[in-house]
Every structure is written in C-alpha cells, then in structure tokens.
C-alpha cells in the first residue's frame, strides 16, 4: 500500500519549531548545569589543595624552625670544633717527623751510617751518609729506590771516580770523612764532630726483585740501631756521600695553622717566631 502525504510541509512547522525550542532549552540548561557541576568539583579540589597547602606550610614552618635551631646549635660550637680540630692537628703533626724517620730507618741498609738528616719544609731531605764500600752504597741506594711510598725522587752525589779524590767523593782511610755539603737551609746543620747517625737496618736488605719478606714488616731498622751504631766506628773506612730525596707528599710537613691565626703572646698578629716580646728579655731556663 502506498501512503501519499498531500499536506504541505508548512502544516507541521510550528510544532517542529516548538519542539526545537524545547530541545535547545534543555541543551542550554544541561550546559549550565554541567558547567556548575564541574565548577563545584574544581572548587572542591581547590579547597582540598589549599587545606593540604596549609598543613604542608605548617610542617614546613616546623621543619624550618627545627633546622634553624639545629644550624644555630652547630654554629655555636664552630669555634669549639675549630679549637679541637687544631689540637688534634697539632698532636697529629707531632707524629709526622718521628714516623718519617722511622720509615726512613726501614729503608736504610744496615752497613750505611748516617751522619746527618735534615728535612726542609718543602719536602727536601738531605742525608749525609757513609758506606764501607761502593757495593754497600749501591745496595743502600737500591733500597732507597724502593721507598716509593716515601719519596718521589732519590738522588745520590759523592760517589767517587778514579782516582777517588778527584771525583768529589771523599774516601777515607782510618777516620770518618763526613761530607760537609751544606744541608737544608731551613734546618741549619749542627756542627759535625765525626761519627755517624746510624739508622741502619739490622738485616741485610733484599735487592729489588729478591724481596720475599718485605722490608716493611716492622721497624727492624730501628730495632737494630744499637747494633748498627756499635759497628759504626768500624765502618768509618768507606766513603761519604750525600743523598737527596723529595718526600712524596711535602704537605705533611706543613704545620697546622691556628684558627684565627695564633700569634706570639703580646704581639697579636705577629708572624710566628717573630718573638715580639723577647726584646725585653726572655726567660731562659736550662
């Protein structure tokens, strides 16, 4: 069956328009309601964030207050810490030179006799020594070359040529011939009266490549000082030489500086050692 609408389209236009108006009205209301709902949701989140911010700010203020107090406490003991640190540094520094000399003794060949050791503040070590023979001096030098943890540079001077007295080395027959080479300027040498400073090791050192026990097993050089010394007079028949070494870390020889710059009593700011008040007469005690 065929349905034929013979009515003109304008017959239902008014009804359609009314329906469209209602439809758009609902749409507008829905838009407004949606916006309001979303806005209220956003505002709730905003309020939540603000509340969290307030709590976080409270925690932060408390944390800052604790930190400020802690910093203040730490700052209040900074001078104390500086003093304690200086005391510890001084005590530690007092052990530097003995430890160095003991280490040096460990590397010293027992047939070699020292007559003087001087250490300058820049790390230069000058050793005046006597060896009975060239072989002993060689062994000593090879041993010193092994002291890589102690020295960065080791050199020897005074090894005699031929004839012996023409090469700078001083061979001696009976008595000891001390090398009078000027030593460290920072540590003036005391007057020499002969004899040797014996830091000799008690056992023959192993040559490089032959070491099995290790030379650092103990302070055997020191332990054998006495025996080394007792033989020293008999060994004064060799030649003397000078060994120059450079300490691997010269900074260990720099004495600690006092916080605030300690100065001689009564002369604030004076250079250490200036002895500002000694002009009026020191108090010598002996």
């Amino acid at each position, binding site marked *: 069956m065929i349905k034929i609408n013979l009515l003109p389209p304008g017959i239902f*236009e008014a009804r*359609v*328009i009314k329906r469209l*108006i209602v439809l*758009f009205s609902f*749409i*507008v209301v829905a*838009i407004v309601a949606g916006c309001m709902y*979303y806005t209220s949701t*956003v505002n709730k989140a905003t309020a939540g*964030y*603000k509340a969290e*911010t307030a709590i*976080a*700010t409270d*925690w932060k203020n408390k*944390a800052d207050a604790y930190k400020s107090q802690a*910093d203040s*406490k730490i700052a209040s*003991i900074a001078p104390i*810490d*500086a*003093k*304690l640190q200086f*005391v510890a540094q001084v005590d530690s*520094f*007092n052990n530097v030179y003995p430890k160095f*000399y003991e280490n040096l*003794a460990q590397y010293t060949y027992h047939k070699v006799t020292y007559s*003087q050791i001087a250490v300058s*503040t820049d790390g230069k070590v000058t050793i005046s020594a006597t060896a009975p023979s060239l072989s002993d001096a060689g062994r000593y030098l090879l041993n010193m070359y092994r002291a890589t943890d102690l020295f960065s540079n080791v050199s020897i001077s005074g090894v005699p040529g031929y004839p012996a007295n023409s090469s700078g080395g001083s061979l001696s027959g009976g008595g000891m011939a001390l090398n009078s080479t000027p030593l460290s300027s920072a*540590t003036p*040498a*005391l007057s020499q009266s*002969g*004899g*040797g400073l014996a*830091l000799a090791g008690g056992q023959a050192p192993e040559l490089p490549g032959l070491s099995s026990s290790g030379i650092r097993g103990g302070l055997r050089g*020191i332990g054998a*000082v006495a025996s080394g010394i007792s033989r*020293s007079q008999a060994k004064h028949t060799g030649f003397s030489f000078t060994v120059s070494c450079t300490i691997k870390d010269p900074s260990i020889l720099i*004495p600690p500086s*006092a*916080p*605030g*710059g300690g*100065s*001689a*009593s*009564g*002369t604030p700011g004076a250079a*250490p*050692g200036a002895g500002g*008040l000694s002009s*009026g*007469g*020191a*108090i*010598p*005690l002996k």
Partner: protein
Amino acid sequence: MSKLRRIHIIIIGVVVCLLVGAGLYFLVVDKAVKARDAALVERDGVLGAGGTEANCNDKFKELQDANLKVLEATAKYEKTMRARMPNISLDDTRTGMLALWHEQSEVLGPLLLNHIRSSKGIHLLSSIQIPNPTANPNDLQNFADSPIRIDIGKVSVSGDFKSIMNHLRSWSKLNRLVLIDQPSLTGESPNLVCEYTLSVFLYPMTPPGPPIDIAPPANSSGGTGGMGGGMPSGGLATVNTGQSTGGSPVTAQPLH
C-alpha cells in the same frame, strides 16, 4: 514567530548554546580551574620545599643530633681544656694578663723542662727561653678564638734514636698544647742530637672582656715598650728560679 522557520530556530539554538557555554566557561569554569591549578602549584611547591611530616621528623632528628653534638663537643672541649690548657680566663683582661704572666714566667718553663727531663734517655743540650708575657691587657683582645702562641725556639736534645722518637711523640701527651717542627738529627747514636723548634699554644678559657682604659705613658716615645719587656721577666722569673736577676735573663744549669 510564525516567520521563523526550522532552520532559523536551529541556528539560533546553536548560537545560544555556544554563547552560554562559552560564557560559562570563561566566566566561571576557567577561573575555577586556574584557581585550582594555582592551589596545586602552591601545594606542590610547599611539599617540595619540605612541607611534609617526614621532613619535619627528619629536621627534628637533626635538631636532636645537633643537641647531642653540642653536648659531645662541649664535653670534649672542656676535657681538652682541662687537660691541655692553663686556667686563663680573659673575662677581665687584667686578671687574665696576670694569669698569663704566671703561666709564662713560672709554670711553662719548669713544665717543659720537667717533661724533657722525664723523657727516658733524653738529655737537654740547650736552654729553654720563654718570651716575656705582654704587659698590656688590651693585647689580649685578639685571642677570642685564636690561641696565644708562645714560640720557645730551638731546642736541642740528645739520646739514642728510639728515645728521641719517643721524646718527640711524647710532646703530645704534655698537659699543654705543644707543636714541634723541623726536627733534624745529627751525630752518632746513642748520642744523637736532635734539634727542633717548639711552640706552645694557649687557649684562654673565656673570650676577652671589654678593652681596658689605660693611662697613656708620660713619655709616649717608647715608654710602654720598656715596661712590657722588663717587668715580667725581672720579677716573675726570679720567683721561678730563686735567683735575683734584676731583669736580666736567667740561665740555670742544664738538666740531665
């Protein structure tokens, strides 16, 4: 109304919807969103800056640790001061100066001598000279946190190698803070000679008080220097050694 056709209503409706939606978005929603974003950023900023309970607890623990550290440092400091320093208080620099006189003129010299004398196998070869203390209390103003340094100078001792090494180390056990420097060894063991420089550091127990008004000397050209040099050595060194010196240096017999 009757002239409005369907298409007109649709256009008008769509336009109205768009206008209402846009108006609400820009006037209400956008402001709310921006406010929320700002609050979020602010919250994150505060949280990032440590606004958390965990951070607060950490800081509180730091404060407790700091308190503990202060107590430990203070106790260690007091112990060190009692063990290594004379009781020189500079609250009143005048009495502090007198205490320093006693220390430098009467206490320190015998203390050093006794220490060297008590070192096993060590003989003192040189004299020990203590510089004169200051006679101006205002000279002590600079020693709030810095130590008073007393340079003793060169000291020569003799002994065998081991004794000398032990002696050098033993200065750290003295009840004064002593620094030894540049020890050199010469001679033949057991009569090695070791020469080293000796410095003593004194920390006052309290920082210096206010400066003292001192009457200017009658003759300003060198009057103060003479008093500062002569008086302490003459008077106080006599007490120490039992000899009348009249201001000249006192030299006692070597202690072996």
